[in-house]
Structure formats: C-alpha cells, structure tokens
C-alpha cells in the first residue's frame, strides 16, 4: 500500500528547476536571517544539490544514465543556474559546497547531443572566471572555486580568456600564498593553464614573452620559497621542451640573464631542483646558435661548469640523463672564446 502514497519521482529537470528557485531565494536574501524557514530551505537546497550529484556521478547501486545527465545539463545551462550556484556557494555548508563543486566539475564534461554546452555558456559568461579566480584570495572558497576553475579551463576558449586576462599576473602571487593547500591548488591551475592547450599557450607566450618571463624569473625561479622554485623550474622545463613552444624556447635560451638564473638553480643544494634545472640548462648548451654573450659565459665558467656537471650524480641510474650530461659537457668543453 505504501506505493500509493509515494510521491511521483522528480525528473532531473524538476530537480534543476527547484535548485534554481532555491538559489534565487538565497541569492536575494541579503544576509542569512537565521529564521527557521531559511534553514529549512537551506536543507532543501543542499538535498537538491546532492541529488544532482548522484544523477551525474551515479551512486553505489546505480550507474549514471546518459539521457538523464543530458537533460540535467541542458536545463542547467538553459538559464543562469551556474552563476547563481557560484554566487551562493559561500552560503552553503561544507558538504554542500563539495557537492556543488563536483556538480560544476562534472557539467563541464557533459555532452548534450555530442556538444559541450558548458563551453557555450561560459563563452557568454566569462566574467564568472573572474569570480572563480578571485576565490584564491578567500581561504574558505579557494579550494572549491579553484577546483571549478580547473575544470572550466578544460575548454580552450575559457583558458584563452584567462590567459589573456589581467588575472594572469595574480597567479604569480597565488602560487606563493602561505596556506599550502591553496598555494598548491593555484599552482595546479597555473600548470594546467600553461600546458593544456598547446596552440593557445604558444600564442600567449610569444605575445606576452617580455612580462611573463620577467615575472617568471624574478617571482618564481628566484623566489625565496623552496617549493615555488621547484615547481617553477619543473614547469619551465615542461613548457620549453614542448614542441609547440620551440620558438619561445629558442628565445629563452638566447638570454644571458636566463642562463645566469638557471646556473644558480643548478647549484642549489636540493637534488630535485638541480635535476629539473639541468633539463633546462642543457637547452642553453645544446643551442647551436648561441649568442656571443652566452658563449662568453660558458667560456668564462667552463672549468667550474664541467666540474659541477662531472660531480652531478642522480640517485638512480638514468641512461638518458647520463647521455644528456655527456653531451652537454662535450658542448661546453668544445667552446672557445
């Protein structure tokens, strides 16, 4: 008999609509007025967000249904639900914030008729990226907004917007925030921005070469923070060794100042930094069109460099590394003033 009184199951569309209504309610209510009614509505909202999550991800006993996911996604982006959700996240409790983050992350990858409509939505609402990026300045929001941001920049068009926005400069500071978890999250986002969409990155780097590498060198590679230097030198290697950035690489390894910085990193006492620095340093040596001032640095420091490299051993055997090292030493030894 129980079945008789069972409410009709809500469709994904119903849930999105109800979520949106509740979000609008909380968006309008200026401050949490702590009334009983508000609290009840909040419980309802959190419940809805959780339901959205279980439709998208499935649960322990049900696989997500692609049809339901598509309906949900379509309804979600039909109106400004994403904006409302992002705005209201600070008002949610921790569990609902995490659920909302996962919902937003998942929606970025949901195809509707084999199109990622999230990308279309974001294209028209790029200012949301500004909100998400500013999240790094808010300890409570940083990890939620950061995770959403990383999902959004999977869309090339969004990554392009962020790369060319004034926010790009802020990442150099976010990476060094005192809260390790937040700084590490910002670093992960930065790395994603600088490596994911090859052509966009290459275009960005060649257009913004001057300020970008000036900041990169002074703020990151020469940072007083160990972890910043280590992440920065690793990422630098990844960027320069990427085929699509070969023009940028050629330019980078022709600069005397860059060589000086890399030589200093090569002399660090940290093995991890040394190894990563070597992978960039070798490019300076391998460059067959070394400018005269680079050659003169190599020549002036020849014996010191050769000694350093000779003593430079890594813990586990690495034939590739040894071969690289031998080649670099050969290059340096052959240089004459």
């Amino acid at each position, binding site marked *: 008999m129980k079945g008789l009184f069972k409410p009709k199951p809500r469709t994904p569309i119903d849930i999105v609509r109800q979520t949106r209504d509740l979000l609008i309610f909380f968006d309008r209510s200026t401050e949490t007025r702590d009334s009983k009614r508000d609290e009840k509505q909040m419980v309802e909202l959190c419940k809805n967000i959780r339901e959205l999550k279980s439709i998208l991800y499935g649960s322990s006993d049900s696989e997500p249904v692609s049809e339901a996911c598509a309906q949900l996604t379509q309804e979600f982006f039909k109106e400004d639900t994403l904006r409302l959700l992002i705005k209201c996240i600070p008002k949610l409790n921790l569990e609902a914030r995490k659920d909302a983050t996962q919902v937003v992350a998942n929606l970025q990858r949901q195809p509707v008729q084999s199109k990622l409509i999230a990308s279309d939505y974001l294209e028209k609402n790029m200012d949301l990226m500004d909100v998400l990026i500013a999240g790094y300045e808010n300890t409570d929001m940083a990890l939620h907004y950061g995770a959403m941001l990383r999902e959004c920049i999977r869309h090339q068009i969004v990554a392009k917007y962020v790369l060319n926005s004034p926010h790009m400069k802020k990442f150099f500071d976010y990476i060094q925030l005192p809260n390790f978890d937040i700084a590490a999250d910002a670093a992960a986002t930065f790395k994603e921005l600088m490596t994911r969409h090859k052509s966009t990155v290459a275009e960005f780097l060649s257009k913004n070469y001057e300020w970008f590498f000036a900041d990169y060198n002074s703020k990151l590679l020469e940072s007083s*923070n160990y972890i910043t230097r280590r992440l920065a030198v690793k990422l630098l290697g990844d960027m320069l060794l990427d085929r699509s950035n*070969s023009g940028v690489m050629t330019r980078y390894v022709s600069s005397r100042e860059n060589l000086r910085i890399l030589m200093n990193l090569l002399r660090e006492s940290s093995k991890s930094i040394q190894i990563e620095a070597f992978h960039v340093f070798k490019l300076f040596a391998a460059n067959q069109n070394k400018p005269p001032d680079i050659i003169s640095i190599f020549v002036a420091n020849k014996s010191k460099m050769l000694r350093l490299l000779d003593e430079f051993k890594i813990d586990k055997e690495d034939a590739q590394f040894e071969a690289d090292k031998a080649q670099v030493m050969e290059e340096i030894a052959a240089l004459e003033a």
Partner: protein
Amino acid sequence: MKTSMASNIVERVQYPLDSSSYKIIDEIGAGNSAVVYKAICIPINSIPVAIKSIDLDRSRPDLDDVRREAKTLSLLSHPNILKAHCSFTVDRRLWVVMPFMAGGSLQSIISHSFQNGLTEQSIAVILKDTLNALSYLHGQGHLHRDIKSGNILVDSNGLVKLADFGVSASIYESNNSVGACSSYSSSSSNSSSSLMFTDFAGTPYWMAPEVIHSHNGYSFKADIWSFGITALELAHGRPPLSHLPPSKSMMLNITKRFRFSDFDKYIYKGHSGGSNKFSKAFKDMVASCLNQDPAKRPSAEKLLKHSFFKNCKGPEFLVKNVLNGLPSVEKRYKEIKVTMGADSNGNDDDGDDDENSVVNVKQRRISGWNFNEDGLKLEPVFPKDPCREDHDVVKQVRFEEENAIQVEEDVASSGTVIDANLNASDEVDIDDVSGVVKNREATLATLSVLKGSLEQELGQVKFLMSLIGGNGEENHVAESEEKTVKEISKLRMELETERKKNLQLELQLENIKLHLISSTANSPTS
C-alpha cells in the same frame, strides 16, 4: 539551537601559518621522510598540537600527492577523522598542523600495554568510531587505503580519530593527463556503477586493468578488508601471520580460506588465547570483512549495524580501561626508540614513510603493520600501491618481493616495476590460474604503458635531433644524428626484450590453460 551550518565553517579558528608561532616540545613519531612533533601554538593559548613535518625534497617525484593529501585534509570534516588545522612550508619541509592526540595510536598503545590484545568491549568502541569515519570517507568518494591500528589515534577524552591520508585517493579527483571525460559520463559496459576509481594518471605502471575498471563497491571494499585485519590486530595484539616465515605454500593455503576459525590453527599458531575468548558476533563481523570476494564484504555503513556494535560503550570507557595509567605518547615513543634503535618503526603517530622505493618500504613499513617482513605476508596493502584492491595480484607480487627488488633496480631507468609482475607470474602454481590471467592482464597493461613511454621518448629524441640539426652545422648534425640513431636502436632493443618477455608469459599461460583443460577433462571420467 544552532546557527546555520555555513557560519560554523567561517567561525573556525585560523591557526597561524608561520613556524615561529609554534614551539616544538617533543618528537613523537618518525618515518622515512617525515617527523611528527608535539608542539604548542603560542598565539592560541599555547594549545597543544601535533605537527607532521614532511621533507619535500626526498623521494616524492611529484608534489601532486602532497597537494592531494593537503586538500583531502582541509575538506574533510568529521568527528572521527583527524583533520589538519593548516599546512604551510618551512623551507624544504611541509608542516601539517593537526590536533594533538594525547593517547597516540592504537598500535603504540597495544605494543606498550596490551601485547595480547584489547578486550572486546574496548575493541568495539574503537572499531565503531573507525567505521563512522570510514563510512563518511567512502560517502565522500575517498578511499583511505591504509587502515591499520597505527593510523587510529585516541585523544585524552577517549575520542577515536582516523588519521594519515598520505595514500588516500578520491574518485572525484580528476586527473588532467587522462581524458577522464568519458569515464564520468558514459557508462562502460561491464561495470555496474560509474563511481570508478579513475585516478590513474599518476603511476599507472603496475595498476591492473581490473582495478581501473572496477566499480565503486569493489575499490572501497579494500578498506573493509584492512579494517578486518585491524580488528584482528586489536584482538591479538598483532596482525595475523606475524610469526610465520615467508612461505608461499602457507600463504596460498591461508588466503584461500581465511576464516576466523582458522586463525588459531594457522595464523596465531603457538600463541595462547584461542578464539574462545571472543564472542560469536565479533568473529562473524571480522569474517565478513575478510571475505575473499570484495563484493561479499559489507559496506562500512552496513557494518555499523552489525550486532557486534550494539550496546557499544562510549569514549569514557576507553579512558578508564585503555588510557588509564598509560605513559604519555612522548614517553612511549622514547622507549620504542631506545629498544628498537632510533630509525626503526616507532612511528606511532605515523610518519609519512610511504615512499616509492620498494627497498625502503621493505625495511621500514612494508605494509600497514610496522612489523618485520614476516608480518607483511598477509597484508594486502602496499603503501603507494594503487592496485591494492586486487588481492590476488598483490599477493603474488608480494611474495616475490625479494626478487622484484633485485630486478627493479636494473630497470630503474625505465621507471617501472614491470619485473615484479613478470616474476610473480613466473612463480604461480597451476592451481592458481585465475591469478595468472589477472597478472597477465596487468603485465600487458604495464607493457603497453612502457611501450608508450618508449615511443614518447623516441619522439622527443627525434624532436631534439631536428631542433639541433635544424640550426647546426653539417658535421654536428651527423654526429648528433649518429647518437640519436644509437639511442633509438637501444630503445628498440629494450622494447624488443619486453615484447619477448610478454610473449613468454603468454606461452606460459597457454600451457597452463592446456594443462588445466586436460586435467579437468580427465577428472570427471576417472
């Protein structure tokens, strides 16, 4: 009665993010790359805290693991989970500031005062709280992957907290290097849930394909197994099998039938006690966790409803019966240090010593138990090992560990542990064909990954070649080209060797299959 939940979060105390605000009192634990201190936080009324100081320069090739752990810790919120107040770097070390748990870990408590195990009533309190934590964790999509008494801590009020998320994983954490897009949205044919463990990009070399494709219940059930072993650890004072010599046959015997009643016969042989002192409910609860079939193990949530946890006592019971009269964590740690030597396994608050090096792991903390190598034999959990869900494979790799280490060093340059798998399957008996099949898949996966990486390397070499060649003079080009050609042929040979090994394995497998078919064909008639 309560303000809205959101305000709870905002109101939390912000711990200072500089080392000068803390004063270190004592060392209370140490591992390979981490030390745990008792300290006080001066600006916050000198409140006691535990600081885990992780050396970031050692062994961690990728800081992503550290980032994930920090993130996990900051986003989890449950009374039975030890969370971090904050974390920040101090030169090359990461300081994770956590609440100070005055009772220390249960491993330390047991080894100090309850060497023959705790009473069932105490065990029930501890396990119930641990299950609460696990149930929350699994609900959040996280696997702990290192459940053991050394990671269960008690504070002075008898409150139990699960700690150490160094090797935990989340099914929601997406990995950029993998096109994980589809694994979330599209349904794969043979799994019954999409909550798959897709965290696969980090170190996929020895991850078995069935782990990647396993559905949610499967992967979470690995924690339940470890939970069952932990129950035994608390009951007997040490994990099962800790007295046995490494013996393969014994190993296989026991793992086939792993029931509570067997423990006295095999697992705790030679030690007094006997299963009589434990209730039927307890034995039944443990047995359900240790089912060989992960699907048949209950979930954490379901376990909580088990009759063993009915009428469970509260934290004050632990204060009275376990913590009372116990020396401080600091004192106990010092004693261990003295008796076992400074660098042995006294990590009661658990230093983060789950490193990549198998050699290290072997000597320090092979598995969850901090015991000597005899103790590890049963333990299905390899720190860092992403395929711990699959006990068959793990076990086989395990008892060939000695060889694996040897060989691994030889192939260190390619950075894989492929030979661990190869070796393991070399040794498999005919009666364990299913294991071989799994192992073969694992090996194949490993090989294809290796092949991929070799090809990638080849591409890089070619690229460098064209780059250098493009700008260089004639003879330089010839020279570097020659080198590159050599490099390529070397890589090819490596690849060839791996292919041969693979072929051998496949042949072996065919043989075993034939053998099996003929023996099964014979048996009904005879």
